[in-house]
């Protein structure tokens, strides 16, 4: 019976949390939940997907899947998808998912819906809610072709334990090597374990009021106190000044984020920045300008000099540790 097929993404030897989130959502939809996991060492991880509802897990494992090579992964996944013939394909809209999903859809000759924050089942159709204009508006989108290919923004759904049958099948994929033209020469990862801003649960962000790159250390220190799901962010002003790399930028020409907690330090709140973070569950703003637009969105506002507030906040939070 056609149900849902999940793409389970492996990073650093672990299945991404976002992949479990979409498995949980698929289980809620009902019907058979299948997952396809691709990666070197994927076989050893596959059974974890059963805990959240996967009935069938297709494993594509081998040394050729050590690094994400779009063409190889797309070929492998599409072969599995054609066997499973699902009505819905779900993936997490991680950095890799954003590259992978549209290529899969195009090869299947169907469309895709990117970066959704909610899904409703309406008979056989899934209605996907997704932010557009960096979160200034929402669109309700439906696929007109099957399978319906949908990428879900991380942190949109809770991970819920609900056992699935969990039958694991190792798939022998025949890759057309002549089509795998792009070669990964090297990968350089930053020496940090901090999560990507789009996946972080807590973001401590700094703007023009930070006055210079050296002061972001204090935001990093604050973020660390919140644990491994926290990271730092920056406004466009801080990035354009060269204080932070672009990967930290939150807003319309940076990342659109939905953390549980967003702490904006020295950020005035330009419309492009507000669009990128106003879906955060709780917003805290620290700014000495009481008229700063950020305060119109903040649940908690501190009107004072961040260079006094943030170090004191760090000391106070340490007392809870």
């Amino acid at each position, binding site marked *: 019976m056609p149900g849902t097929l999940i793409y389970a993404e492996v990073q650093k030897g672990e299945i991404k949390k976002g992949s479990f989130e979409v498995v949980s959502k698929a289980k809620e939809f009902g019907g058979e939940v299948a997952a396809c996991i691709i990666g070197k060492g994927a076989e050893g991880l596959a059974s974890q997907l059963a805990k959240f509802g996967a009935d069938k897990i297709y494993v594509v494992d081998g040394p050729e899947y050590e690094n994400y090579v779009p063409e190889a992964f797309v070929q492998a996944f599409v072969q599995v998808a054609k066997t499973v013939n699902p009505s819905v394909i779900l993936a997490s809209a991680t950095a890799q998912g954003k590259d992978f999903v549209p290529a899969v859809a195009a090869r299947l000759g169907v469309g895709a819906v990117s970066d959704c924050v909610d899904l409703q089942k309406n008979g056989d159709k899934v209605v996907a809610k997704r932010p557009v204009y960096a979160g200034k508006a929402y669109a309700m989108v*439906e696929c007109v072709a099957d399978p319906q290919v949908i990428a879900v923004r991380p942190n949109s759904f809770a991970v819920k334990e609900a056992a699935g049958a969990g039958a694991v099948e190792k798939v022998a994929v025949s890759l057309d090597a002549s089509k795998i033209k792009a070669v990964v020469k090297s990968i350089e990862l930053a020496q940090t374990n901090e999560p*990507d801003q789009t996946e972080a649960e807590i973001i401590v962000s700094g703007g023009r009021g930070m006055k210079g790159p050296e002061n972001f250390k204090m935001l990093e220190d604050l973020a660390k106190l919140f644990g491994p799901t926290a990271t730092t962010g920056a406004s466009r002003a801080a990035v354009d000044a060269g204080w932070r790399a672009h990967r930290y930028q939150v807003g319309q020409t940076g990342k659109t984020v939905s953390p549980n907690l967003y702490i904006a330090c020295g950020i005035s709140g330009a419309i492009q920045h507000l669009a990128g973070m106003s879906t955060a569950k709780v917003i805290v703003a620290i700014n000495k300008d009481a008229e700063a637009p950020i305060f119109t969105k903040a649940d908690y506002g501190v009107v004072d000099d961040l260079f006094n507030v943030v170090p004191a906040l760090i000391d106070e939070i340490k007392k809870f540790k």
Partner: protein
Amino acid sequence: MNTVVCIKQVPDTETLIKVQGAGIVQDGVKWVMNPYDEFAVEEALRQKEKMKAGAVTVVSLGPDRAIEAIRTALAMGADTAVHINDAAFAEKADPYATAAALAAAVKGLTYDAVFVGKQAIDDDAGQVPAMLGEMLGIPVVTMVIKFDVADDKSKATVTREVEGGVAVIEVPLPAVFSAQKGLNEPRYASLPGIMKAKKKPVDAKTAAALGVTEGPKTVVKEMSLPPARQAGKKIAGDDAAAKAKELARILHEDVKAV
């Protein structure tokens, strides 16, 4: 080196979006070239200048007004353009249909590389680069922040953003590259550039004239605005230390972040 750059005209980032049915209210919107496409145009121009040969062709799908974004790219230095001037097709086009139309136009051109912004800041889908590569049958490298091409134009070595870092990819040409911020600093159009752009050739065609048979595969049913966020409370205190103490208490007891 011959390159094609696909661009889209979008509302300026300052725009206050108002929705109407399945779209936005277009009155009063200031239209600009998608910011990520500016990086794509700039990179194409730099490659042409470096090689001292070749042409840059701009391709854009959009109604009449899209010509302004096309002229901007021509004023920056692009040589020619194809305007898929088809308001009816563009209005309903999802990323799949957009990629199909762009692919149909690109197929008729001579190129070593196709540059495109990593996403358009209106629908934020970010699908066109990968779909365009699929439809053209050539490799795609997304999120490119550094681009180098071999002297014989046989291959490119590019740096792309990946989760938590960067990857260096080698790919034979032709290929599609999606531009991420950081790739370069786009130039402004000069006054002589703007004057020259007015005389550069723009080939206007409908989707049907390009032989596009594919339509959209996804449809927007409705648009809405996010619930307005109310300003919350200002934390009171005699000095920064007192306010910080109260904020820490809130983060601990109410928000439960620590």
